[in-house]
């Protein structure tokens, strides 16, 4: 015994392996409710567990909007909120213990769960035609698989936005560009003044690189069109495909040139996204004049640090939609999609309320942390004109597409797409290498 501990350990390990091997095979979820246990019972008195990633004011706003209705129906909501939602939901699915409802920031995860039977088609639960009649055009496509809807947005955001400081823009004699050519002309004008036109930063801790993906997506949508965009997101058009080259050309021309980007192109990779746009708010002599970012950027943690407040936002901050490259004005955005994972009468009632009722979210919208995905949502709920303008851009969109990186497999959309863009921006790799590496990381099957 004393002589060969390693051998003994190996024997022990094998023995345990044999006895446990049976467990490994049956790893698929087996209690997903199999869609059918709608017991016909009443919803009142039941508890519905909802998992989501909203935090802070978003979370309180969401609860404030849902709670009064739930109380009136006698339904108890078990709120399960965490910024680690994506990891948590994977564990719950792998472990076979599903919440009733989950609200996904990434449609890609929902699509992955469809194959595992972990999410249920909403066509049987919700009146899809009714939802479609008020929903922003194209939003329902985000989490549809084989003609069935698995996720319906309950909150939205807009990414096709450029921001500027009204006073500084006017002082420099700049006007809002309507087309990409006008934007280039604006940039040349700023450069002629000896300044850099664009503010840009892509540092975000463990998520560094994501701001670049919003740029690429917006311009793929503009230059390649909606069909190619969908194929690209689905993985059938590669990153290195010639059809996407115009979008990457625009990124390269605008953002990898030291003359265009404040602080230099390479340093942008290490510049925190949250404050990257703030130099344009300098009282005198701003270092850069405009930058592209989603609508959340007006918050206290971002523009707030440059002196933007609820009181002065409408006089200080200007916003325009991404200038058109080819005459079209598609809108890129994101949102949080409701999916039903374990159904019963109460769950169905909650799902119907959150998706069909286009007035849902009034108290939430007033906090300024949410945009409704419904076209007929009353914009007067939003606390300032800037947000009303953004909401109008969303509601009037003829073509809307969901943030592509959120729809791709996480390995690409939250992995290589981020890291390879950083490596390209920071000069560790050239463009061709970065794009090839992203293509190679796309999961097989």
């Amino acid at each position, binding site marked *: 015994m004393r002589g060969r501990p390693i051998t003994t350990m190996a024997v022990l390990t094998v023995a345990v392996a044999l006895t446990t091997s049976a*467990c490994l095979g049956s790893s698929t979820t087996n209690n997903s409710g199999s869609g059918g246990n709608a017991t016909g019972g009443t919803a009142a008195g039941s508890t519905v567990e909802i998992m989501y990633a909203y935090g802070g004011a*978003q979370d309180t706003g969401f609860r404030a909007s849902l709670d009064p209705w739930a109380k009136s129906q006698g339904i108890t909501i078990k709120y399960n*909120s965490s910024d680690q939602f994506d990891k948590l939901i994977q*564990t719950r699915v792998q472990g076979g213990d599903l919440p009733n409802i989950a609200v996904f920031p990434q449609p890609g995860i929902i699509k992955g769960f469809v194959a595992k039977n972990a999410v249920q088609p909403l066509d049987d639960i919700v009146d899809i035609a009714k939802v479609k009649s008020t929903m922003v055009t194209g939003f329902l496509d985000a989490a549809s698989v084989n003609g069935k809807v698995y996720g319906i947005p309950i909150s939205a955001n807009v990414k096709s936005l450029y921001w500027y400081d009204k006073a500084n823009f006017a002082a420099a004699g700049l006007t809002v560009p309507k087309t990409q050519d006008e934007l280039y002309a604006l940039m040349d004008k700023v450069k002629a003044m000896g300044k850099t036109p664009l503010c840009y930063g892509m540092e975000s801790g463990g998520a560094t690189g994501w701001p670049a993906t919003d740029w690429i997506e917006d311009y793929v949508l503009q230059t390649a069109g909606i069909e190619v965009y969908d194929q690209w997101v689905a993985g059938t058009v590669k990153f290195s495909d010639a059809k996407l080259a115009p979008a990457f050309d625009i990124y390269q021309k605008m953002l990898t040139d030291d003359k265009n980007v404040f602080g230099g192109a390479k340093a942008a990779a290490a510049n925190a996204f949250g404050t990257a746009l703030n130099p344009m708010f300098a009282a005198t002599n701003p270092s850069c004049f405009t930058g592209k970012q989603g609508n959340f950027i007006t918050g206290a943690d971002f523009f707030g640090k440059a002196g933007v407040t609820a009181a002065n936002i409408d006089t200080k901050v200007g916003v325009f939609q991404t200038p058109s490259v080819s005459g079209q004005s598609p809108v890129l955005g994101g949102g949080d999609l409701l999916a039903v994972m374990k159904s019963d009468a109460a769950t169905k009632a909650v799902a119907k309320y959150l998706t069909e009722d286009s007035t849902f979210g009034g108290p939430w919208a007033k906090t300024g942390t949410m945009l409704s995905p419904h076209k007929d949502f009353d914009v007067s709920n939003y606390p300032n004109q800037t947000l009303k303008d953004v909401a109008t851009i969303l509601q009037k969109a003829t073509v809307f597409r969901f943030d592509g990186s959120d729809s791709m497999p996480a390995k690409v959309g939250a992995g290589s797409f981020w890291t390879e863009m950083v490596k390209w921006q920071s000069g560790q790799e050239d463009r061709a290498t970065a794009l090839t590496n992203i293509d190679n990381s796309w999961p097989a099957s």
Partner: protein
Amino acid sequence: MSASATSVPQVGSGKAPKGKVGAKASQASWVVKAVVWIIVFLWTLPTIGLLVTSFRPTTAQFNGWWNVITNPTQLTIQNYQDALTTGSNPMGGAFLNSLAVAIPATIIPILIAAFAAYAFTFMDFPGKNVLFIVIVGLLVIPNQAAFVPLFRLFNLFHLNGTFLAVWLVHIGFGMPLAVYILRNYMGTLPKAVIESAKIDGASHFTTFWRLIIPMSYPALASFAIFQFLWVWNDLFVALIFLQGEPVMTVALKALMGQQGQGYALLTAGTFVTMLLPLVVFVSLQRYFIRGMTSGAVKG
């Protein structure tokens, strides 16, 4: 704690303590003092940055935290008020949950590991060496690797969402290190003590409780501190196995929005969550007194 060690309860030893405590202060040269306080300064400086930041409103954080030296008026306790009162998970309830998780998840593994360490040190049995190196080898398994298998296992017994589930996981994850640290400590205790206890007719159980446990206080207290901290600061085990019942770390993270909004509240909340661990550390420090063990060992 007084400067004189005579007030410290001596375990088992009737003799006066042998510490040189009284003479200590004069012995520490200024070099020693300077080196210690320089290290302390370097070690604390980053934390001071966060502490100062936690007293600044978000809108004032456009320059480095050291600017408060020239402009101290911008300090406010608003972040602390907001961290404690806003958010969907009240910190008060989360505090209780954290206690309910951390206290059993600290004491139980120490108890279990102490028994095991005693057996590994003072008893002979077949398989002793193999078991011990298996334990050391398992130290290297990342906890995340165990989440899904355990989650599935607990699901069979409907344990998910209970405190019991969280304790069990923490007991399991803390066990190898506890056994390892305690065994290595007990290994330094002279076997002669055990032999003499045996001759006096004491059973293993009695020897363990009356002799080895008191002699192991420093190691027990050390591990208690570590285990308490790991459990207290753990996020994932609580998130996965306590399902929605918030502990402090969960409530803390819930203060932030999806793009990192509300960071100022997080800085304040971080210091709130640090208070109890520091109290635990300071109160357990009384077990690190010279003479504590040496008095008992020399029979």
